[in-house]
């Protein structure tokens, strides 16, 4: 990153810290950056609630996201390829998707709890819903964006429909699939925290941790928890981008 990318955030944090030190910002509403870092330290070593350490919260959250997101990708990519490939299948399934898609994932929480109870399945289901549609729609768009002449070229090389599917449609739509996967993980990660607000059985999860911190009035730890959410989101996105640029070397 360039110098100017750091400059503005750094300046804002300094001003924030300065205002806090002068007591112009009340600590119980917005703790200072230093207080937040100390809160983060407490989360790491003492835990919230005490004994439940940060890294376990993170691991449980990642596990829920991994499950919901994994199932979403596993279903959305093949379905998207099929829908992109066959106009008939697309016409058949599209109305259903257009009906379900606008329902916010969080609106599913009550029914998810009825179906799965409070626990990992409920949370994973909410994340699944958040990640599924972006992956699906981008996979369809990816197939549709493939130049038809490539399909014809494969046909003149005597490819069967199955070979065309595997050797043209799949590799050709991978750039778009990646876009969907990145949007999907973003939405999945966002919905996770909200899903955890409604309660978790295991006693772990970043969202759950933040709600506990609120219950005992620790705004420093609430903000430290938010910071952790942001950082993990950043890392996931960076990881996906690196993987993507490695797989998509052909695109330059």
């Amino acid at each position, binding site marked *: 990153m360039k110098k100017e990318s750091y400059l503005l955030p750094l300046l804002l944090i300094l001003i924030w810290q300065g205002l806090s030190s002068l007591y112009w910002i009340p600590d119980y509403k917005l703790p200072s950056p230093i207080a937040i870092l100390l809160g983060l330290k407490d989360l790491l070593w003492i835990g919230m609630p005490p004994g439940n350490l940060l890294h376990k919260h993170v691991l449980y959250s990642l596990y829920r996201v991994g499950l919901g997101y994994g199932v979403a990708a596993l279903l959305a990519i093949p379905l998207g390829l099929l829908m992109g490939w066959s106009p008939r299948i697309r016409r058949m399934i599209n109305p259903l998707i257009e009906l379900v898609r606008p329902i916010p994932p969080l609106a599913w929480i009550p029914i998810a709890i009825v179906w799965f109870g409070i626990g990992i399945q409920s949370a994973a289901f909410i994340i699944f819903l958040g990640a599924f549609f972006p992956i699906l729609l981008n996979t369809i768009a990816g197939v549709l964006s493939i*130049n038809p002449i490539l399909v*014809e070229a494969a046909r003149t*090389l005597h490819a069967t429909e199955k070979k065309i599917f595997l050797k043209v449609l799949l590799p050709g739509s991978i750039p778009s699939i990646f876009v969907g996967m990145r949007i999907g993980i973003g939405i999945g990660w966002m919905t996770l925290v909200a899903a955890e607000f409604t309660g978790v059985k295991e006693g772990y999860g970043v969202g759950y941790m933040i709600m506990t911190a609120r219950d005992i009035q620790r705004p420093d730890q609430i903000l430290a928890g938010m910071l952790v959410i942001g950082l993990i989101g950043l890392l996931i996105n960076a990881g996906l981008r690196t993987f993507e640029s490695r797989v998509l070397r052909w695109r330059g």
Partner: protein
Amino acid sequence: MGLEILGLSKTFSGGSRGESVHVLDQLQHRIDNGRFVSLIGPSGCGKTTLLRIIAGLEKASVGKVLLDGKEMVRGSEDVGMVFQEYALFPWRTTLQNIEMGLEIRGMDKVRRRSIAMEYIKTFDLNGFEHRYPRELSGGMKQRVAIARTLVMNPRVVLMDEPFGSLDSQTRNAMQEFLLKIWLKRGDTIIFVTHNVEEAVFLSDEIVVLSRRPARMLERIEVAFPRPRDRTGEVCNHIRRDILKILEEEMKREEVRDEDHWNRLQSP
């Protein structure tokens, strides 16, 4: 023995306003094995449609295509096609593009690699085996595309304006290169172009098609020996003949269009 086009007609139904478009009109022709035949005609006349029917990408409305007396089936290994826009798979390297057909055929990796490497050598692509299409020049891309088709050893090679988007110097070089390869291999080539010079320089025979719906206007034997001088007496003579045929064809159509216009105007 050869390729026979028997009473081939093609009508596309359902244009933008539901009218049907008559593209090919009872084409009848015979191409002996091992000949280099160019199809030339006004743009949009249906040359490409004819190639696509022979390639099995499109179905004829009436008529059929025979190869050595047998009707060609869709997806037959006897035909290969080279497209104008290269149609290389952008996610595959030069080597992988050339291997694609063999891979589809189910040939094992070691064998198809060694065959593809031979083509890399013949097609002067050394050092670019592991490059992606976006890293290649236009001429190189088209060499890869031709290699990808020829590696399958088709008996009939269809080429749809393969050099149409190349600059003229590269185009000349590619023509000479194609001749060299063809003289060695002796496949049948059906070559669509709208460049008269190109057709005269390359072909054993030139078929001139009319405007849509395409009919056969003229069949010209180009019998003089290769290598040919593009700007020589004989080439220019044949070029003049073909240009005249094409020009007259365009005029005829203009008259017809005018008639049509007059008819529309009169109450």
